[in-house]
Each structure stands twice: as C-alpha cells, then as structure tokens.
C-alpha cells in the first residue's frame, strides 16, 4: 500500500517537474509547478512530516506560487513564453552527468538507517528545536534577519530610482 502511494507520488512529481520544462505556456508551467508542490507535500506526509507538509502547501502553493504567477504576467505572450534555450544540449549533459554522479553516490553509500519510529507529533518537537533552549535559536534569529534583509532588499530593488 505504502509502496504504491510512494510510486504514484514519485511519478507525478517527476512528470510535474518535467512539465515545467516542457510546456511552452508559462502559465501552464506554473500550474505544473504548483502540482509538484502539492505532490511534495504528499511525499512529506509519507515521511511522517505532517507539519512540513502543511507548511509546504501553505507557503509554496499559497504564497510562492502566487508570487511566481504575478511574475508570469510580465512575460510577453505567456502562452508561448518559454521556448527552449540555446544551451539546452549542454545543459542536458550537465544535468545528466549530475544525476548520474548523484545516483551513483546515493546507491553506493551505505546509509546508517535507524529502525526507530519517527517522532510524533512533530509540531511541538519542531517548536522546541527552533525556539527551545539548546535549539536553533540563533539560526532562527539569523533567518529572521535574513528575511528582513530580503524585504528591505526587495523593496530597494523594486523602487524606482
């Protein structure tokens, strides 16, 4: 059962990701990307990461994809706005090489697997990890600074001089 679900999700994910590449219509590519995000959320669920799954939908589908769709509107003639580029062959080779190396690495490595059941519920754990003492408090604050910087940077960039 679990296997079937995984294969289904994995297949959809790959198809959706390829869809982003293949479609000439930028809008459809964006939709394909949204589908991918949803599927990835499903994959998180199979990995017992329920909080992440929900956050994935909330952030990626609810926010980032909206932003991207906004940007899609800048494309002239959206329905044929994503033609393949000049370097597609080189790019293909690079990507393929990367995949081969990666795959070889993954399959070849002897992973230390643990048989413990994953920790549930995750939310409180993540909370403790992020904000609790001994957690990643500093990282959180740095991420906060990063985000503020991103806002300031974005506004500075987008403002007209």
């Amino acid at each position, binding site marked *: *059962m679990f296997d079937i679900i995984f294969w289904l999700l994995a297949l959809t994910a790959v198809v959706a990701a390829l869809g982003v590449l293949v479609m000439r*219509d930028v*809008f*459809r590519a964006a*939709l394909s990307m*949204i589908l991918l995000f*949803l599927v990835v959320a499903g994959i998180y669920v199979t990995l017992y990461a*329920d*909080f992440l*799954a*929900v*956050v994935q*939908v*909330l952030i990626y*589908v*609810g*926010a980032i*994809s*909206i932003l991207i*769709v*906004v940007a899609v*509107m800048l494309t002239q003639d959206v*329905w044929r706005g994503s033609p393949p580029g000049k370097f597609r062959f080189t790019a293909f080779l690079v990507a393929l090489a990367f995949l081969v190396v990666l795959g070889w690495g993954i399959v070849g490595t002897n992973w230390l697997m643990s048989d413990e059941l994953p920790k*549930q*519920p*995750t*939310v409180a754990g993540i909370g403790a990890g992020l904000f609790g003492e001994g957690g990643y408090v500093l990282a959180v604050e740095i991420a906060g600074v990063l985000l503020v910087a991103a806002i300031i940077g974005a506004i500075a960039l987008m403002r007209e001089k």
Partner: protein
Amino acid sequence: MMTLLEEFRAWLSAALPEWAAYLIAGIVGIFVVLGFVLTLVIVFIWYERRLLGRFQIRLGPNRLGPEGIFQPIATALKILIKEDVVPEKADRVVHWLAPIVVFVPVLMVFAVIPLSQGAILADLNVGVLYLVAVGSVSAVGIYMAGWGSNNKYALIAAMRTVAQIVSYELPVVLSLLGVVLMVGSLSMTKTVEAQVVPFIVMQPLGFLIFFLGALAEMNRCPFDLLEADSEIVAGYHTEYSGMKFAMFYLGEYGHALAYACIITTLFLGGWRGPVLPPFLWFLIKVVAVFSLIVWLRATLPRLRVDQLMAFAWKGLFPMALINIFVVAVEMLWLVDISRWLVVATNIVLAVVLILAWSRLFVLGRGRVEV
C-alpha cells in the same frame, strides 16, 4: 480520545483485514461528511435566497415544495442539463481543470471539522494549519478559471484573487495563531475542548480579524471583488456555463459553509453547549454564522481592491500582530490567575485598538497618476 471513526474502524477490524476495515471505515465516514456538506450546501443556497428576500422585503423562491425548499434542486438539475460552452480562445485544459481545483479543496476542508463530539474525519495534529493550507489551494483554481477563460473580465477577476490572497492570508493566519496560543495544539478537537469559554469572548479582536479575513477568502460581501457583477460582469466565471458554473457556485457556498464551520469550531465553541445534543449546537451555530454573512451581504457595499489591501495591511495586520503578542503574554502569566482577567484585558485591548486604528489609519485616496 478516539474519534467515532476510529472506534468504528476498530470494531470493523475485528472481522475484516486491517486495510479493508480502514478503507471501509474511511469511505463510510467520508460519505457521512459529504452527505452532510452537500445537504447543507443545498439548504444554504435556499436559505440565503429566502433570507436575502426577507431582508429586501420580498419573498424569494417559495413555489417549489414547501416554502420553495426544492428550488435549489431544480436549479441544480437545470444547470446539469445545460449546454456547456468552452470559448474557442480559452485554454481548454485550464478551463476544464479550474472548477475541480476550486471544488475539491472545499470538500477537503471538512476533513478536520468536528461536526459533533468525536465526529471528525481526521483529527490531524496540524488541523488548524491544514485549514488555511487547503483553503489557499482553491484560490489557485479561481486564478486558473480567470486566466483560462481568456476573457478580460475574468482576467481582472483573476488578478484580484491575487490581491485578495496577498492581503488576507496573513491576518487570517495571525488570528489563528492567537487561537493556537490559547489551545496549545493545532488539533481541531483539542481546540473545541479548550473552549470552556468560547474564544469569541476570550479574544474578540482575533475573532473580528478572522471573520473579516474569512469573508474576504470566501469572496463574500463586502469583499466580493472577484465577482463584482456591477464592475466585471460575472468575474472569473464569466465564460463558464453548465455544470462547471454550478461547480463554482457550489464551491462558493461550500466555502461559505466551510468557513461558517471553521468559525464555529474555532471561536464559538464548536459542538459545545448546554442541554441540546452536540450536533444540534453545531448546526445552530453554523446557521447563525451563515445568517450573519447573508446579513452583511444584504447591507454593505463593496470595497475597492486597493482599499481592501490597505485595510488588510495597514489595519488588520498590525492589529493581529499586537493581538498575538498580548495573548502570548497573557497565556504565560495571566491565565493562571483568572480566565476572566484575560477576557477583560482582551476586550479592552480590542476596543482600544479599534478606536486607535480608526483614528490613525488612512485609506488611500486611490487615484493614480497616469
């Protein structure tokens, strides 16, 4: 505590293999929920038409069946057998997919809503966030409808969707944060159980923000910009006919029902209530919330899109920020002294903030130099 569904599954698995019990239990539960949703949606459509009629000193549909209760059925049947037009210029795939993308998330929301004590499909550990997350998917559907129709009115409506999500998602999430702070869990059943005093009393400001945000998310008056028929004809479903249009229509009422249920669960104490059985309490509260929505619709004009955004960003967002911080402080120290102290401070906070913001914040004039 086990939900009814889990008990049912446990009972089933005595006789059946595990997976079969699981599947059967799931499907039975889902059909109960779907039955509830679809009946209520149909009843709501009728109810809104009648209630709106009474607000407007007229009758509303009253001829089919007792008091016109069969009217939505006739309407649904009629739409079902209406021709389906797909404009030639439209993006056919997107045009076909959009109604599904709008409708499915609406049904999905009901997975985590406790209809009665224990009557919940999936008591997720992340229930509250799940609501918002799923809700944001149907906005994508609306966007698809607007874009896929290849119609300028629909396009404008689609862009307004973006404006609406961008402005209302944040206050909604923030006000939910207030609820979560009080409950200490994201689970919906725990939320209901935590409401010895309904949260509408505990944090009126949070309720107000959430209610306004919910109105915007379900495109109801005064934020019904997506189908502002005096401006952009029928909005994103201008080019839709037949069953696909019905899907949007159902989706819209389903959304309204979903948000009525959510507000009931999160702020009105869900199925809790004295004397009457839990399910009845739930129903009464949902209908009350829905009536309030219809009442607003019967009264208010709508905001303009930039005012909507300014209202959300300059009004609701900072208020919500202050609200959660105050609630957090209260939950750490005040609530152990007395619950009613929290109520009092929060009401004072709400009044003070509303007064202050009414004085401080200015909605833009809205003219753009071109």
